[in-house]
C-alpha cells in the first residue's frame, strides 16, 4: 500500500463537505446558463403561448391581454382565418380519392411493417401513429387544395416552398459541387462565384428578383418581349408568383448546399475511388456506391438545417409579391407577420405555434430518417 496515500486519508466530515460542495458546485456553476436559457428561450416560448391564447387590446394608458382560450386556434381551423391558413378545400373527386387512397395505403403499409417486424415498443408505436395521422391529414389538405378549384392556404404554400425549394437546392448544389471538385480550369473562381448569392441580404435578393421578373420594366424586358410575354406578369397567377419566389429562394440557398457538399466530397477518402476505377467502375457506379454513401450523413444534416430554416421564409414573398396575388404566396411566417402587423397578436401567436408544430413534426421525421439511413450507410 502506498503510505503517501494513507497520509491524505480524509476525515468523515471532510468527505461530507467535499461531496456536498461537489454537488452544489455542479448545480451552481450551471445555474447562470440555465437561467439565461430559461430567460431567452423558454420564457418567450411560454409567453408567446399565452399570447396565442389571448386577445390584445389598447387600453387607457397602455394595453391589455384578455384570455380567450383556444379561440385563436379555432379561428385558424374553422373560423374566418380557416381559408387563409388551410386553404380553400375543393369538393372530393374520384382523382382526389385515388391519390389520397394511395397515400393511405402507403401509410398503412409503413405501420404494418413496423408492427410485423417483432420489435414493437410503446414509444415507437405512438410515434408512428402520430406520424401516420399527421401525414394523412396533410395529404388530405394537399389533395383538396392543390387542384380542381381548391386553393392553397399559408400552411400548404409553406410546404411547397420547403420541399420543392430544398429539392432543387440540393440537386443543384450537389451538381455544382461535383463539378467544382473536378480538375477543371477556373474551378476556384467559380467556387467563389457560386457562393455569392448566399452572402446577399434576402431583401436584396427579393428586390433583384422582383426586377428580373418584371416583364415591362425589368432588365429582361427585351427577352420577355421576344418571347411574346410583354403583357404577362408572373405575379398575376398564383403558381407563377410562387414559381418566381421559388426561383429566388433556390438561387439564394443553393450555395449553402454547394459549399457544404464540396467540403464533404473533398473529405471522402480517395482510395476506394481509385480502387473502383482500377476495377473498371464507371463514374455513375463510383457515385452510387462510394460517393453517395460517403456524403449521405452530411447531406441529411444539411437538409435538416435547410428544412428548419426554409419553414421561416418571409422576405421573398413580402418584397416580391406582397404575399399576392390574394394570399397565394404568403408563407406561415408571413401570415403571422400580417396578423402581428394588424395588432392581432393572439392570431399571430397561434400561427407561429402552428409553424413550430409543423417544423417539429417534420424535423422529428427527418431526424429518425437520418438515424436509420446513417446507420445503414455506415
Amino acid at each position: 500500500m502506498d503510505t503517501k496515500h494513507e497520509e491524505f486519508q480524509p476525515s468523515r466530515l471532510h468527505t461530507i463537505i467535499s461531496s456536498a460542495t461537489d454537488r452544489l458546485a455542479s448545480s451552481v456553476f450551471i445555474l447562470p446558463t440555465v437561467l439565461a436559457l430559461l430567460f431567452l428561450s423558454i420564457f418567450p416560448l411560454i409567453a408567446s403561448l399565452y399570447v396565442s391564447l389571448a386577445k390584445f387590446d389598447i387600453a387607457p394608458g397602455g394595453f391589455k391581454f384578455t384570455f380567450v382560450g383556444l379561440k385563436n386556434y379555432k379561428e385558424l381551423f374553422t373560423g374566418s382565418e380557416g381559408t387563409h391558413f388551410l386553404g380553400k378545400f375543393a369538393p372530393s373527386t374520384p382523382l382526389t380519392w385515388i391519390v389520397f387512397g394511395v397515400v393511405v395505403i402507403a401509410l398503412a403499409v409503413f405501420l404494418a411493417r413496423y408492427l410485423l417486424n417483432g420489435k414493437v415498443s410503446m414509444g415507437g408505436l405512438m410515434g408512428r401513429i402520430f406520424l401516420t395521422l399527421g401525414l394523412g391529414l396533410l395529404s388530405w389538405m394537399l389533395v383538396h387544395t392543390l387542384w380542381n378549384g381548391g386553393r392553397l392556404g399559408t400552411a400548404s404554400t409553406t410546404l411547397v416552398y420547403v420541399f420543392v425549394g430544398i429539392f432543387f437546392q440540393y440537386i443543384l448544389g450537389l451538381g455544382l459541387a461535383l463539378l467544382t471538385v473536378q480538375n477543371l480550369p477556373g474551378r476556384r473562381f467559380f467556387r467563389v462565384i457560386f457562393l455569392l448569392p448566399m452572402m446577399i441580404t434576402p431583401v436584396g435578393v427579393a428586390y433583384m428578383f422582383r426586377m428580373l421578373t418584371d416583364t415591362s420594366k425589368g432588365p429582361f424586358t427585351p427577352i420577355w418581349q421576344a418571347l411574346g410575354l410583354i403583357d404577362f406578369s408572373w405575379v398575376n397567377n398564383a403558381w407563377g408568383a410562387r414559381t418566381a419566389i421559388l426561383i429566388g429562394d433556390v438561387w439564394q440557398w443553393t450555395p449553402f448546399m454547394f459549399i457544404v457538399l464540396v467540403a464533404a466530397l473533398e473529405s471522402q477518402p480517395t482510395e476506394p475511388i481509385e480502387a473502383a476505377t482500377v476495377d473498371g467502375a464507371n463514374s455513375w457506379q463510383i457515385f452510387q456506391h462510394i460517393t453517395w454513401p460517403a456524403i449521405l450523413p452530411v447531406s441529411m444534416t444539411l437538409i435538416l438545417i435547410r428544412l428548419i430554416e426554409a419553414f421561416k421564409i418571409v422576405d421573398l414573398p413580402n418584397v416580391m409579391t406582397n404575399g399576392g396575388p390574394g394570399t397565394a404566396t404568403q408563407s406561415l411566417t408571413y401570415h403571422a407577420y400580417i396578423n402581428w402587423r394588424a395588432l392581432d397578436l393572439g392570431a399571430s401567436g397561434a400561427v407561429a405555434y402552428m409553424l413550430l408544430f409543423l417544423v417539429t413534426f417534420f424535423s422529428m421525421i427527418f431526424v429518425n430518417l437520418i438515424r436509420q439511413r446513417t446507420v445503414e450507410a455506415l
Partner: protein
Amino acid sequence: MNSKNMLFKILSLMIVFGILLTACGAPATPAPTEAPAITEAPAATDAPAATEAPAGKIYDGVTIDILTFVGPQVAEPLQRRGPDFTELTGATVNIITVPNSELYQKVLTDAVSGTNAYDGYLFAPAWVVDFAPAGLIEDLTPYVEADAALEWDDVAPFFRDFNSYGGKVYSIPLDGDMHMVYYRIDSLEEAGLEPPKTWDDYLAVAKALHGKDLNGDGEGDYGSCISKAPGQQAYWWIWSIAAPYIQSQGTSQGPFFNTTDMTPLVNNDAFKRALEVYKETGLYGPPDETNQGVGDSRGLFLQGRCALTMDWGDIGPLAIDPANSKVIDKTGAISNPGSTEVLDWETGKLVPCDATTCPYAVDGVNHAPFASFGGWAGAVNAAVDQKEKDAAYAFFSYMAQPAQSNADVVVGATGYNPFRISQFENLQPWIDAGFSQVAAEQYLNGIKESFDSPNMAADLRIPKNHEYIQVELDRILAEYIAGNLTTDEAAQQLYDAWEAITEEAGREQQLDFYKGTLGQ
C-alpha cells in the same frame, strides 16, 4: 478530492453567489421618478414661430425622434427642414421611417409598451381616435391656441375637424388629401373623348385608350393605372369608387355604415358594383398592376403610359417637373367621377338618380368625392418629457406654418398637398413653382370642388378603423382582385368581418363614434 481543490471550489462558489447577489440586489442607480403631472398648458412662447424666432435657442440639447413612413415623399420635407429647425431652436431632429403598412403598429407598440422611442409621429389623423382615448398622444389644443404663427384659422375647416377628437386638437396637418382622377388631355382630345363624369365613363375611356401608344415610343400603353398591391394603399381606391354609389344625401350620411344600426354598407348592389368597376379597371392596366403600389402607378402616369389614373393631389405638382414628367401641360385633373344610380339603403338595390335620391347631383350624376386618408399629420407622444413634447410640437408647427407649408405643397416630391385656405386662393406660389395659370386653376379647382362638395365623403374615423380598412378590407380586396372570391363572396366576407369587429368593439360605442364623425 484534496483540501486545496475543495478550498478552490468553496471560494468559487462564494464568488458566484456574490455575483448573483449583486445582480439581484438593488440597482446601482435609483429608479426614475414619475414625470411630474402637467397641470398647466405650456406657455405661448413654448411654440416657436418660424417667422418669429425665439430669443436664444430654447431647445438646445433637446433631441426629438419623429416616426413616419418611408420616403422619399412625406419624410423628405421633414429631413430637409430638420437642420433649419435646429438652427432656429437648437433641437436636433431625427426622422425615423418605416413602411406604410407597419406605421400604425410601430406607433402603437412604441407607445403602449412604454418604450417611447419616438417623441412625435407623422401619421394618419384617422388613427387619432385610437390613440387619443388611450392617452397615448398629447392634447395639442393649448399649444395651438398659443401659437399665432401656426395660423390655425387658415387651415381648411375639414382638416381642423379631421385632426381633432372630442373637440380637442391632437394632430397638426402638414398635408391635405383628396382623391382625384387625372387624365391625359392630349390623348382624350385626340380620341374625341370627354373626361369621365361617371365610373362607367371612366371604364369606357380606359377601354378606348388601352393599348394605344400614349407616349410616342411605339408601344401600346394603358387605359387606366390604379395600384392594387395588397398591404399598400389599394383599400382607399375602392371607397372613391363606392362613395358616389352609396352616399347621396350629403356628407353627414356617410358611406361606410348604416347610421341606424351600424351594419356595414358593403353587402349591397352599390358596393358590389364598385368592386366590379375596381376590378375592371385592371383589364385596362399594366399586367402586374395587382403587385403595384401607388408609386408604381404614379410613375407610369408621369412617364406618359396611362390615359387615366386616380391619385391624391400629388400628381398635379409632379406632372410639371421636367426631370420626372413626360406629361407636362398634358395632365388634366377632375373631381372623382360619380354615378347615375345610387343605393336605396332600405332595399340594398341601385336606383336611378332623381331630385329625391340624388339631391346634390350635377347633370344627373351623383358625386361623392372621397377625402381619403385625411393627409399626413403630426402628433406628439404624451409620455415623453415636457421639453421633448414642446420641441416635437414646435417642429410640427414649424412645418405646418405658411412660410414652410406654402413652399412644400407646390413641390410634388414632398407628398404634401394643399390644406390651407390661402393655398387654394393664392395661385402665385403654384405659378412660381412652374404651373401655368390654367393648370394651376384646374388643379386647385379640382381639389377645392371636392372639398366644397356638400356630398363629400369623409374617410372612416372610428376606433379600429385600421382593422376595418387596412386589415380586413385589404385582405378581402386582394383575394377578390386575385380572382379567389366572387363579387358576392367578397361583399359577404367583408360584411361578416366588419360585423365581427363592430361586435367586438361594442356596437353602440362604434355607432356613437361614427355618427359623431359625421356630425349627426
